[in-house]
């Protein structure tokens, strides 16, 4: 029920990852504030009542997009709209740019961050599934140093990640692949709403492939396919077989049905992308 003013909290604005981590280690009940586009509504409703906010928006080192030889590194503070518009991302990961453009609305995308979305781990959001589909690796910092977690292992359940207490996500490494083509499709009641169900489909050069669903269960669901059939009927059977085994959140019949529909629509995008 509504209480649309947040509780009191202490406010920290560290200027480095090290001091952010120190705050996180010393302040009880602290939360990191990045874009705040999910956290602040929850605080306004008093569904989230942190005693302390650590505002990382001043840490410039987290706001970069860096293109390397074998990967693109995205800082945790890169905004959704930046991902949507960035020329390098559009070039190397068009599917990621497209998916980022489906998040919320312009004013939300201008402020919402990659790191915030991934750590929030809403099962209906696009970016966690995109990172799983693209086999990205999360770089996570703690007081004892950094570690890397493959996206598929990062999302462990309903709004839950592999981040330990005292850790923060600093960047995401997305490997460049010259051989795979991706497609993306989702279904939302209104554009900009959280997706009811969505899918990323990958076709690799060797005729293998993968589908990554979101919105069907408590986390992104990655399913490799040793052969991604070119025959429509065979492909449909494959989607149905995979969808049948999903542990769906609720409304199983509808979600499984849509999982099949959206996988196929994402596949059609793969075909379009190859022609294009």
């Amino acid at each position, binding site marked *: *029920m*509504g*209480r*649309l*003013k947040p509780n009191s909290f202490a406010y920290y604005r560290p200027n480095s990852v090290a001091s952010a981590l120190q705050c996180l280690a010393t302040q009880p009940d602290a939360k990191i504030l990045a874009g705040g586009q999910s956290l602040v509504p929850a605080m306004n409703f008093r569904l989230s009542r942190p005693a302390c906010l650590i505002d990382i928006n001043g840490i410039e080192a987290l706001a970069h997009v860096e293109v390397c030889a074998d990967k693109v590194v995205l800082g945790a503070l890169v905004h959704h709209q930046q991902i949507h518009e960035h020329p390098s991302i559009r070039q190397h990961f068009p599917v990621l740019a497209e998916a980022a453009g489906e998040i919320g609305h312009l004013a939300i995308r201008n402020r919402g961050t990659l790191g915030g979305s991934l750590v929030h781990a809403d099962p209906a959001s696009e970016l966690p599934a995109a990172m799983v589909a693209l086999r990205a690796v999360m770089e996570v910092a703690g007081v004892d140093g950094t570690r890397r977690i493959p996206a598929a292992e990062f999302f462990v359940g309903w709004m839950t990640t592999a981040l330990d207490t005292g850790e923060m996500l600093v960047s995401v490494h997305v490997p460049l692949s010259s051989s795979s083509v991706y497609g993306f499709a989702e*279904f939302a009641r209104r*554009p900009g709403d*959280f997706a009811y169900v969505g899918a990323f489909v990958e076709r690799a050069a060797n005729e293998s492939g993968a589908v990554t669903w979101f919105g069907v269960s408590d986390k992104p669901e990655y399913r490799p396919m040793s052969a991604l059939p070119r025959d429509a009927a065979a492909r449909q059977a494959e989607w149905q077989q995979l969808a049948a085994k999903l542990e769906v959140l609720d409304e199983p019949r*509808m979600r499984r049905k*849509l999982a099949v529909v959206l996988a196929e629509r994402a596949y059609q995008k793969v075909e379009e992308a190859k022609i294009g």
Partner: protein
Amino acid sequence: MTVRFEQSKPQFTGARVERAEDARLLTGRARYLDDLDFPGTLEVAFVRSTHAAAKLVSVHAEAASRMPGVRMVWTAADIHVTLDSPEFGVNQPVLAKDEVRYVGEPVVAIFADSRYAAEDAADTVEVTYADLPPVLHIREALQAETRRVHAERPNVMYHQEYQTDGFEEAFGNALHHLSATFTLHRQTAVPMETRGCMAAPDGATNRLHVYVSHQSPHGFRADLCKFLGVPEHAVRVIVPEVGGAFGIKAMFYPEYVVVALAALRLRRPVKWIADRSECLLADCHARDGIHDVDVAFDGDGRILALRDHLMGDSGAYPAVPFCGSIGETSLAARMLTGPYKIPHLSFTIDCTYSNKAPLGAYRGVWGPPASFVQEGVVDRVARALHKDPVAVRRINLLQPEDFPYRTASGFVYDPGSYAESLETALELVDYDGFRKRQREDRSRGVYRGIGISVFVEPTAMAASEAGDIPYEAATVRMEPTGTVTAALGLGPSGQGHETTMAQLIADELGVDVRDVVVLHGDTDSAPYGGGTGGSRSGTIGGGAALTAGRKLRDKLLALAAHLLEADVADIELKDGAAHVAGVPAQRLTVQQLATAAYTDVNRLPEGMKPGLEVMARYQPTRPITFSNGTHIAVVDVDVATGQIQTVDYVVANDCGVLINPTIVEGQIHGGVAQGIGEALLEELKYDTEGQLTTVSLSDYLLPTTHDIPNIRIRHLVTPSESKGGFKGMGEGSLIAAPAAVVAAVSDALEPFGVMVSSMPVTPDQVLEWIDADQEKKVDSVDSKVYFEN
């Protein structure tokens, strides 16, 4: 066609005049309720019931009183006012006493230096509830054994029956029959500005000033004074800029009493602004009705008799001053035959209490349900007989020679363009071309459907949600400089009355529309009037503006004739001057006339009183004038996902003489958008415990830019008998639109045997229908032809 003025062609009436309101709104300078601030204002947070039905075991608010910044805390023990509905014998304590009856009902009020502090204190209040079985469904409430929402009253709070003579015979003798149940889920209006009020004792006059976002300043004052037990001259009501209202702001609410009494008790300003969750919980709700309908028809599709059992959910209390369930059902019942010549009608109405929020007014009120039933019946008859829906409409529609037409319920329709509006809309949408393309589309697996809604809107009625004041009043004063100040008792919330009323007055007085300022919303300056609601402002308010303007015009003409030494019949008044017909040089400006009237009174003709100020009331000769029109919607249904997209929309609209076509079009657009929302998106959902699960705008879905197509409009003009020839039009578009949209969905899914019978239509329903169709298909006339979801 435009109304004929005796002396000069109207310059502004009927023109696309830009709005006087816009500059302040576009620049952010307008002052809405929460933009007003006085030093020392306290803000209020309400603790609301989290249980649908429960005894209040205890309410502990002591800790809240000790919180920083808190000035006062009230529970039912501190405030004994009830919102009385004597006709129902049910009174709502403004803070729940002993028992709570819906989630969102105010229980505790906290007055603090800021809303933040008030909310912090609200968090500390401990309420202990002992649950009762909640009553949540109409059919359940109708059962005698169901627990009573009000122990001392039966759950059926309103019952009415009506039948035309010879109904049973006509019904029984008909060749064909069909039955259907229509269900409308709960909704609410959701104006972008939330509800609220501020009360401030005025030291200068020793009165209470009450600022409120409301549609009827005088009606609000009457209700507030009644509940507070204070005389009306002791209260000044000021309605600032209103950010949308749509009926929910025509209502009176418990919070207003709490705020006003606290201001009187504390002798300081007190303000409460609803947050969005409070709006969804505790603004009045709408719709939530069921219609069990039986239809008798002949082999051509002529509808012979119609029977409806209308059931309305009133919520926990009869809303003050307009019980929505009764308003929705009783008028729907009488309007059920709509634009069709259906000779026999039978209806039974039952309205019941429930443990949900009270049902009040939302734009259209009875209309969207009635249109849904009326158009749904026509489409079902057409499908049963394998006829085109247009053919069945043509057979049943009222024709020009039928007016004035007495309906089966006893309403008398004034002339309208019913049949013409259908043909106009069909042409606009290229109906025949659509049907050809539709066959090709379906063969490609594209399901595009078309839906028609021919509507009749009773407007400018003696009684509506704006109260039962059958007239409106206007004062018009020409200032000594020749500019004009008018005041009306209307309560606009975006309809542009400051512009349209000024257009009418400017034409009467022969001045520039920019030289007329129109005041409203302040009981100190506005004459007593009914306010805005029930599509009455243009017709009744416009009539008042014309009447007052005409009186002042007559005085100006008499004065000019005297000063110009001419016959009054020869004086023309236009372009800011009076001159003798045919002798343009013989003229006086209105400023010269006004100066004479106020300051050079020796020059006035004998018997003429000084000054240029008149007040006039206008009551239309007919109790109702009926607007009409036809809406046609085209939707695409994605049968893989169930997604529905409205892709085309046309309107042929007849609201009599147009004051400002652009404003009329804006009203139509907005009503259609709300209608698309009603048909496809908006739903207040209560769970099995009576918890409202749609308490934010991420759960209660409003239409966005992607949901509303461009709308093509054509105006038809059948003037009314009202002064100026106007008919009301604020609600017709929302009355017609939901029926058109759901009919289009039914048409798109015709190959699957779908006929939509509940709103809103959701994607999961679409998928269910398509799944179900793959399992069974039936095909006959008098048995079920299609699925009733």
